């Protein structure tokens, strides 16, 4: 920004006011400049200006320009008058701490805004139709005649604009008092109970501000637009923000004082009068892409979104300079005017009159906080094939440090441009203009990443108010209409999976599962109970033969998922997944760097080749997949990071090809504890089937046929962009709640699922479903409801969720030996459950013949006999497992006698 500090003519094309572009030796403290209020510096070089000069910004002139401070204090009915006088009187005596807001470099609210001096030669020539204030006798804020407009036949406007101060004040006052909740467009068609509908939103907000001691009012610009009397004000705010915003600031104070009633306590009155209230407008109709900012946007109110790349340290920005004469000690304060401070060349005291004697006293000058933020386009709005653009933002006062590098923010601000190359020989025609934005409002887009320091109460409260207003607002957009239309289609549940990775053939159920994962369940927090949070993220594991497009699905999901991170199990280490500590190149300090899981917080982490991960790395996932946090204790940094991520993993079976003869756990080399944390486990097998093979070949060939990429699917497919926005919309706006019938259905489905594994004949009961499955069911039903944009979870959602789980379970938890579904196959006690039921039965038969009549039999001999009898080789461990199973069933007992293990049958009660 250094080059932009010389800035007297930044208004460029929109303000034809400055006739002179001479540069001056002046103290620059900011690249900003004042609005058109005074001709400022030109007084020395051009005789055109009237007697009032840039020195007008000095408080010395207040005496003459503002009305007498002795205006009556009691007449509260005229709100405009007293506090201003009080304030001005006060400010000229004490250190006028924070007497102005940093972002709007206007003198309007403190000085007499009417002191809009105009080059008389220009009146008529350039603005013949509008009558303009001239001279200092025009109306001021301090004048006690709110009706002055009526008295005059003329319409007084700020020079160069169509803004009439009185009209704007009146209009905004009317808005603050009159705006009710029911005027918001989204409530227009809905019925609303009277107390809510009649709530005067902004009066309420002002009251809260006074009670809490806040001086920021977040103004939803859409409210202004939808309140018919302020439609003009809305347009003016958009076109002339730096004139209108100070007027609004002032109006807040007026209304605030008015709200106090007739006899307010003196201290409150003083408090309000000393405060500078600031309006922070937000929610403009549209946010501009930063590469679409063009000369037409200069000095307009704009809104852009982006990613904060870096923030400078706080820069003290001189607002008022204090000079003392080194000869006589006389002191003068000079205010910043259009970004510069005019250093007095001569002591103003007539007796002294020494030249070049004025010295700047730093610690009596007044500074404001300023920070320059570099904002970059977010990846989703960068056009294909372009590198991201960035803009500089200037933030002031309490907005400083409110956003940190890495935040995604949406800002509202004034687009400015300043000329560079300000040397006197510079030709106007060759000067270039650099642009930046003066920020008036920052909204964090991702509230999950809210990074404000809780100790800064003001910020939090201010943000809260912004958030409240935001919460009641529903997004109204063409796209939302389209999304809703699509959501009502009867074939939605076929259309969406079909649109997901259309180049991948078939696998409908897998796609449906992944789709539900993208939508996600609802995250819940419990006030009571042991677990404070209940995860809504759905984890999916795909396990199957090589070259069954698993990696392609992963790549696809990684591309469309919000914060998708793709990693391969083979190349991942525990620290790479979680977080690691490294020394920063620039500062040489230890910093915590996020790994894949932390980076995908709030998104989906795709892990390929899950089976090839080392055990140590996998153990990290236990915490992530249930607690959704990552704990780091290293190099003096002990911290818990959030990793609220869904995991989509793919694994190859042991021996790379799935052996259908073996149970899943033997095929997938994953510990049962981890496997059970997946909501859905899909087996993707490469089966030889002529019809499928033929179709698949057709599908692949057609992809290679040039210029016909669309024949990959004959059916209608949603575009990837639309699918993404559909998912984003549903994730953000839909939070389904489980209805009573749905909860009953959930209970039934759960009981049914548990019953499934119940075998009346077997003495042990096999567990089919666990509570984890119930939780999965809930999440999947919620996701299914979300996909249909429903606010409630219905019975059908539960049914589909159950079906998906069942189809997944059916494939992965079926004991190939018995055909029974058993989750025991995945959990606990592998030794027992992995023995085939046939073997146990055969062994039982053998034992019953051998031990007929209650005889005992040696175990070693039993194994030999058993091996002789069976056609396949019997592993010793399998034999032991079968024996243990029989013992558990109470059919026999293994005893040890004289160093020999003996089998003793237990008499069965027939």
């Amino acid at each position, binding site marked *: 920004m250094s080059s932009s500090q010389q800035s007297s003519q930044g208004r460029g094309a929109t303000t034809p006011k400055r006739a002179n572009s001479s540069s001056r030796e002046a103290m620059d403290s900011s690249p900003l400049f004042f609005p058109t209020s005074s001709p400022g510096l030109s007084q020395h070089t051009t005789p055109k200006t009237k007697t009032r000069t840039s020195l007008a910004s000095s408080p010395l002139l207040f005496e003459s320009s503002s009305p007498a401070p002795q205006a009556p204090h009691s007449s509260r009915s005229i709100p405009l008058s007293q506090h201003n006088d009080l304030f001005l009187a006060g400010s000229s005596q004490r250190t006028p701490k924070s007497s102005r807001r940093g972002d709007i470099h206007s003198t309007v609210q403190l000085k007499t805004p009417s002191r809009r001096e105009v080059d008389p030669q220009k009146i008529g020539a350039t603005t013949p139709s509008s009558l303009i204030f001239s001279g200092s006798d025009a109306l001021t804020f301090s004048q006690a005649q709110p009706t002055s407009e009526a008295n005059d036949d003329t319409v007084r406007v700020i020079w160069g604009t169509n803004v009439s101060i009185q009209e704007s004040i009146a209009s905004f006052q009317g808005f603050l008092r009159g705006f009710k909740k029911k005027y918001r467009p989204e409530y227009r068609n809905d019925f609303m109970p009277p107390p809510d509908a009649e709530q005067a939103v902004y009066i309420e907000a002002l009251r809260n501000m006074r009670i809490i001691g806040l001086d920021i009012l977040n103004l939803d610009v859409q409210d202004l637009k939808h309140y018919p009397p302020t439609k003009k004000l809305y347009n003016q705010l958009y076109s002339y923000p730096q004139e209108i915003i100070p007027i609004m600031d002032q109006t807040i104070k007026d209304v605030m004082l008015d709200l106090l009633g007739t006899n307010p306590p003196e201290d409150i009155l003083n408090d309000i009068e000393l405060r500078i209230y600031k309006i922070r407008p937000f929610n403009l109709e549209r946010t501009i892409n930063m590469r679409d900012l063009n000369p037409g946007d200069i000095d307009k109110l704009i809104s852009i979104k982006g990613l904060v790349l*870096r923030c400078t340290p706080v820069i003290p920005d001189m607002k008022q300079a204090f000079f003392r004469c080194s000869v006589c000690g006389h002191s003068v304060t000079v205010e910043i005017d259009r970004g510069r401070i005019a250093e007095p060349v001569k002591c103003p005291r007539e007796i002294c009159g020494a030249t070049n004697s004025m010295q700047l006293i730093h610690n009596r000058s007044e500074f404001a906080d300023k920070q320059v933020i570099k904002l970059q386009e977010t*990846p989703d709005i960068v056009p294909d*094939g372009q590198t991201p653009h960035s803009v500089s933002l200037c933030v002031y006062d309490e907005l400083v440090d409110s956003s940190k590098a890495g935040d995604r923010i949406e800002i509202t601000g004034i687009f400015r441009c300043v000329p560079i190359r300000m040397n006197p020989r510079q030709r*106007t025609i060759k000067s270039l203009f650099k642009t930046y934005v003066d920020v008036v409002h920052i909204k964090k887009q991702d509230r999950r990443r809210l990074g404000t320091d809780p100790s800064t109460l003001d910020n939090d409260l201010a943000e809260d108010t912004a958030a409240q207003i935001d919460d009641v607002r529903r997004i109204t957009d063409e796209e939302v209409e389209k999304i809703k239309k699509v959501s009502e289609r009867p074939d939605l549940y076929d259309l969406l999976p079909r649109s997901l990775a259309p180049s991948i053939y078939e696998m409908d159920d897998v796609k449906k599962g992944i789709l539900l994962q993208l939508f996600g369940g609802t995250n819940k927090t419990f006030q009571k109970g042991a677990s404070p949070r209940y995860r809504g993220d759905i984890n999916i594991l795909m396990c199957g033969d090589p070259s069954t497009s698993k990696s392609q699905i992963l790549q696809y999901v990684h591309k469309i998922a919000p914060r998708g991170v793709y990693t391969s199990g083979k190349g991942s280490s525990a620290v790479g997944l979680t977080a690691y500590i490294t020394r920063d190149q620039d500062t040489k300090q230890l910093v915590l760097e996020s790994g894949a899981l932390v980076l995908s917080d709030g998104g989906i982490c795709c892990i390929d080749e899950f089976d090839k991960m080392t055990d140590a790395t996998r153990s990290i996932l236990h915490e992530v997949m249930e607690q959704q946090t990552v704990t780091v204790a290293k190099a003096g940094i002990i911290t818990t990071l959030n990793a609220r991520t869904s995991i989509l993993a793919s694994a190859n079976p042991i021996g790379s090809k799935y052996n259908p003869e073996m149970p899943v756990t033997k095929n997938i080399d994953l510990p049962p504890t981890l496997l059970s944390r997946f909501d859905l486990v899909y087996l993707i097998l490469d089966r030889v089937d002529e019809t499928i093979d033929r179709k698949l070949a057709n599908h*692949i060939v057609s992809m290679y046929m040039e210029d016909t990429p669309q024949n990959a699917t004959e059916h209608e497919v949603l575009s990837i962009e639309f699918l993404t926005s559909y998912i984003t919309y549903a994730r953000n706006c839909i939070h389904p709640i489980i209805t009573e019938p749905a909860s009953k259905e959930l209970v039934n489905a759960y009981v049914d699922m548990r019953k499934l594994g119940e075998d009346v004949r077997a003495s042990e009961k096999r567990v089919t479903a666990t509570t984890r499955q119930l939780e999965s069911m809930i999440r999947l039903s919620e996701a299914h409801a979300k996909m249909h944009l429903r606010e409630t979870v219905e019975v059908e959602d539960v049914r589909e969720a159950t079906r998906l789980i069942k189809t997944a379970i059916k494939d992965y938890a079926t004991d190939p030996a018995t055909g029974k579904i058993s989750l025991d196959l995945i959990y606990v006690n592998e030794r027992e459950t992995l023995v085939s039921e046939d073997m146990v039965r055969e062994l039982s038969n053998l034992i019953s013949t051998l031990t007929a009549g209650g005889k005992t039999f040696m175990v070693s001999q039993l194994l030999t006999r058993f091996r002789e009898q069976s056609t396949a080789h019997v592993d010793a461990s399998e034999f032991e497992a079968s024996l243990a199973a029989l013992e558990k069933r109470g059919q026999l007992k293994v005893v040890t006698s004289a160093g020999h293990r003996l089998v003793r049958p237990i008499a069965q009660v027939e």
Partner: protein
Amino acid sequence: MVAQLSEVFLKDPQSFLQKIQDASLSNPGKPDLQGSLGIEEAVSDLFLNKDELEKIPNFASCNPNELRSGQLLRLQGMIQDTNFGHEFFAGAIKMNDQYWRGCRYILSCSEDESYVDENKMVLDERYSLFLTNIPGELKSNKVDSLDSEEENEPYKDLIMKYSNRTLGKEDFGFCVKCYGGMETRLRVCQAVDMLGMYEEPSEYSDGLPILHLITFEDFRQPSSITYPSEEEAEHLRSKLLTQFNKILGDNVASESLLLCLLSNVVHRADSFIVGSFNLNLTNCTPERASRIISLLKYLTKRTVVQKVDINELNREPLYPRSDGDTLSIGRLQLTPGTLLILDETELSSGTLNDTGVRNVAFLSFLLSQQEITFAYPFSSYNIQTDVRIIVLSHGKSILPVNAVYTSKFDEALMSSETSLSSDDLEGLSNYLNLWTRATDIPTDMLEFIQSNYVHSRRSGLQTNEKVLSIEINCSRLYAKSLASNLVSRQHFEQASSLVEQWTIP
């Protein structure tokens, strides 16, 4: 008429452009400075007229010290960054309160125009790009005089600021200014042939020379190509295979290499890249690799060789990255059409550091997705590309390749005599230009491929989706190597027999 126009244009470009602008601003109202103001349209046919184009000095072959501000210049290079600044400038000024005068491309102005009242000025915007050498392209033997170094001395410190944007010390850096939305048609990493107005470096441009872009052309191919006919192709093909055999000592390896050199990305179906084919030739020693590399460098103009070993991977990022302020070039910021040879022959065991891990991830992504990752703070961007990739290694490569083949390096077939006559060389490099050509699979092949696949599945052959798509792709490439537009059954069978020799990872 056209000839006359271009004659005027070449003679005095500034006044020519001034006239066009003034004509489009003749409307007395406040001018609308959107679009090209008719300039690009007026000179667009210039690229078609080779003779005229020849008259314009080309940066590649002229002495930069002789260039003067305001003259036309042709410049070929790669767009390193499309975000090199956005500025507003005086786009039009009102002259004598009567008419508007356009100021684009006008580098000099008379005194009376110098100080204009601001309300008689309309702001226009322009975007800057950073242009540098096309990586891998052989640098032309420029007349390098010692004066040039001294000449640049005053700006040496300034220009240092941009040294991260160029690879070598001798590489050029240009600031290209785009008017009227031209920048939206240019892509980062693109190789372009530009025509514009030169502006000498000054302290305001931080010592960088400036090109005010007037018009441009994509520079994927060195020049306009005439593809060889089918007969010629067959002849050249066998000639080329003989050459390959001399260094590879293996017929299958030579054929495989040829298919790889002819591959290009046809289209992308989400994450599935159709058309690209990366080959891994194993059993290479450093000596064998260097012979292959020198031959390929000889044949294809835009060849980048990257050593893949622990030191090289750990040394510096190969990918372009930004620190938030400026985008640094990476060695593998390649333009589409480049031949990338990854030399893994000296890879040994060791530990990768942070940079190394990121480099491997970048390479894997480039191979599997044909996209170049730009690392930005808090985010990364992928730019689609189309590079042909060959991996030379001792054992199976660590990178995700499409096919692996162990070359036999049969001494009986090999020969140390590999030199080519310049005519042959030209013919062969022209033949390799076939890679850009399109080849289609006729619909009647569909049935054949289907039944073929079903049959081999049923007979229990180790085939799957992946092998099938490689077979289809290679049949396309095979047809291409014979300069055929359509894939025939024979091509498919030939390709299949090749694929059978490979290991598909």
